[in-house]
C-alpha cells in the first residue's frame, strides 16, 4: 500500500441538523443558571463544588452534540432526514435531556447522581445508564454514515473516530459505572491532574472514559493530513491508549 497525500474533502454539503443544533444551544444556555448557583452555593460533594459535575456534563454534551452537528454538515444533504432518523434523533435528544435533568437535579438536592445506592436515586441509576448508551449510540450511527464515504481520508477518519467513540466509551463507561466509585486503589491524598481533576496517584476510571469519548476528535485530526495510513495508525494507537489507561486504572495505578 502506498501512502498518498491528497487534500482532504472538507466540503460542507448540508446545513447543521436543526435538532442537534437546538439541543446544543439548549444545553449550553441551561448551564448559565448552574454557573450562578455554583457562585452562590457553598456546598461540596466529595470535596468539589457541588455544581462542578453538572457543569462538566453540560460542557461535555455541548461538545458532543455540537461536534455531531458540525460533522453532519459534511454528509450529503438529507442524510439525517428520513423518518427513522428523525425518530432516533428525537430519542437521543430525550435521553440527553433526561441525563442532564438527573445530574442537575441530584446536585440541587445534594445527593449522588452516579453511584447512588439509596432510594429513588438507586432505582434511576441503571435507567440513566441505558439513556447514556442511547445518546452515545448516535456517534456509532453517524459513524456508519461516514463509513459509506470512506474513500475520502477525512471521512474515513471521522467514521473511525465516531465508531471508536461508541465502541470504546461503552466498555470504559460501563466499567466506571459498575465500580463502586470512580477511583480504584489507595491511598488517596488528593494529588490530581490540573483542570480535569483525575487522580494522579491511584486509578481513576474517568480518564479512560474521557479519552474513549474523544476518539471522535482525536482520529479526525489525523484525517486532516489526507493520509489513510496515518488515519488507521491513529485509530489503532488511540484504541491502545484507551486500553492502556483502562487497564492501569483497574490496577489502581495512574496512567503513567
Amino acid at each position, binding site marked *: 500500500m502506498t501512502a498518498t497525500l491528497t487534500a482532504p474533502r472538507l466540503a460542507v454539503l448540508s446545513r447543521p441538523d436543526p435538532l442537534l443544533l437546538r439541543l446544543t444551544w439548549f444545553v449550553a444556555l441551561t448551564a*448559565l*443558571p*448552574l*454557573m*450562578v*448557583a*455554583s*457562585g*452562590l*452555593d457553598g*456546598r461540596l460533594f466529595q470535596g468539589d463544588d457541588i*455544581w462542578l459535575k453538572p457543569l462538566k456534563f453540560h460542557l461535555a454534551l455541548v461538545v458532543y452534540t455540537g461536534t455531531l452537528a458540525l460533522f453532519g454538515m459534511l454528509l450529503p444533504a438529507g442524510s439525517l432526514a428520513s423518518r427513522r432518523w428523525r425518530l432516533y434523533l428525537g430519542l437521543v435528544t430525550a435521553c440527553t435531556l433526561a441525563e442532564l435533568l438527573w445530574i*442537575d437535579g441530584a*446536585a*440541587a*438536592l*445534594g445527593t449522588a447522581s452516579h453511584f447512588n445506592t439509596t432510594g429513588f436515586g438507586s432505582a434511576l441509576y441503571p435507567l440513566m445508564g441505558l439513556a447514556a448508551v442511547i445518546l452515545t449510540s448516535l456517534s456509532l450511527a453517524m459513524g456508519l454514515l461516514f463509513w459509506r464515504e470512506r474513500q475520502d481520508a477525512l471521512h474515513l477518519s471521522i467514521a473511525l473516530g465516531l465508531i471508536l467513540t461508541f465502541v470504546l466509551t461503552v466498555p470504559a463507561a460501563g466499567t466506571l459505572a459498575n465500580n463502586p466509585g470512580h477511583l480504584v486503589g489507595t491511598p488517596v491524598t488528593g494529588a490530581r491532574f490540573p483542570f480535569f481533576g483525575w487522580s494522579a496517584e491511584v486509578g481513576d476510571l474517568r480518564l479512560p472514559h474521557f479519552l474513549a469519548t474523544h476518539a471522535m476528535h482525536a482520529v479526525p485530526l489525523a484525517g486532516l493530513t489526507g493520509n489513510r495510513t496515518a488515519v488507521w495508525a491513529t485509530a489503532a494507537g488511540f484504541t491502545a491508549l484507551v486500553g492502556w489507561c483502562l487497564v492501569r486504572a483497574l490496577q489502581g495505578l495512574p496512567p503513567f
Partner: protein
Amino acid sequence: MTPDALFQIANPLALLGWLALLASPLAPRAAHAVAGAAIPLLLSLAYAGLVLAFWWQAPGGFGSLPEVMRLFTHPQIALAGWLHYLAFDLFLGAWEVRTARAEGIPHWALVPCLVLTFLFGPAGLLAFAILRFTLVRKVLP
C-alpha cells in the same frame, strides 16, 4: 456572594429598567431590549441560581400561609422572592409600554400605571387594564 450584596445590585438594576420604560418614547427599541429582555432575564438568572442552590434547605412550603411565611424567613429564598417581584413587575411594565404604543394609549396616561406596577405590581396591572378598557375597549393580551 452574600444575599445582601446581590440585593444591593438587583435593586438599582431594576430601577434602571423602570427609568428606561419611563423614557421609552425617546428610544422605544432600546427601552424594550433593556426593560423587556436584558434586565428581567438577568434577574431571572440570579433567581434560578438561588433556587438551584438553596431550595433544598428552604423551610416551610406552599401549603398554608404560615408555611409560606416560614419560607421567607430563609435569607436566600426571601431574596429569590424579591428578585421574582423585580423581574416580573419589570417584564409586565415592558408589556404595558408595548401594548400602549401599539394601541395608541398616550404615554402620559400610562405613566401612573407604570409607577403603580413598579411599587405595587398587581395594582398596576389592574390600573392598566382599567385605563386600556376605558380608552380602547380591550382586555385580552
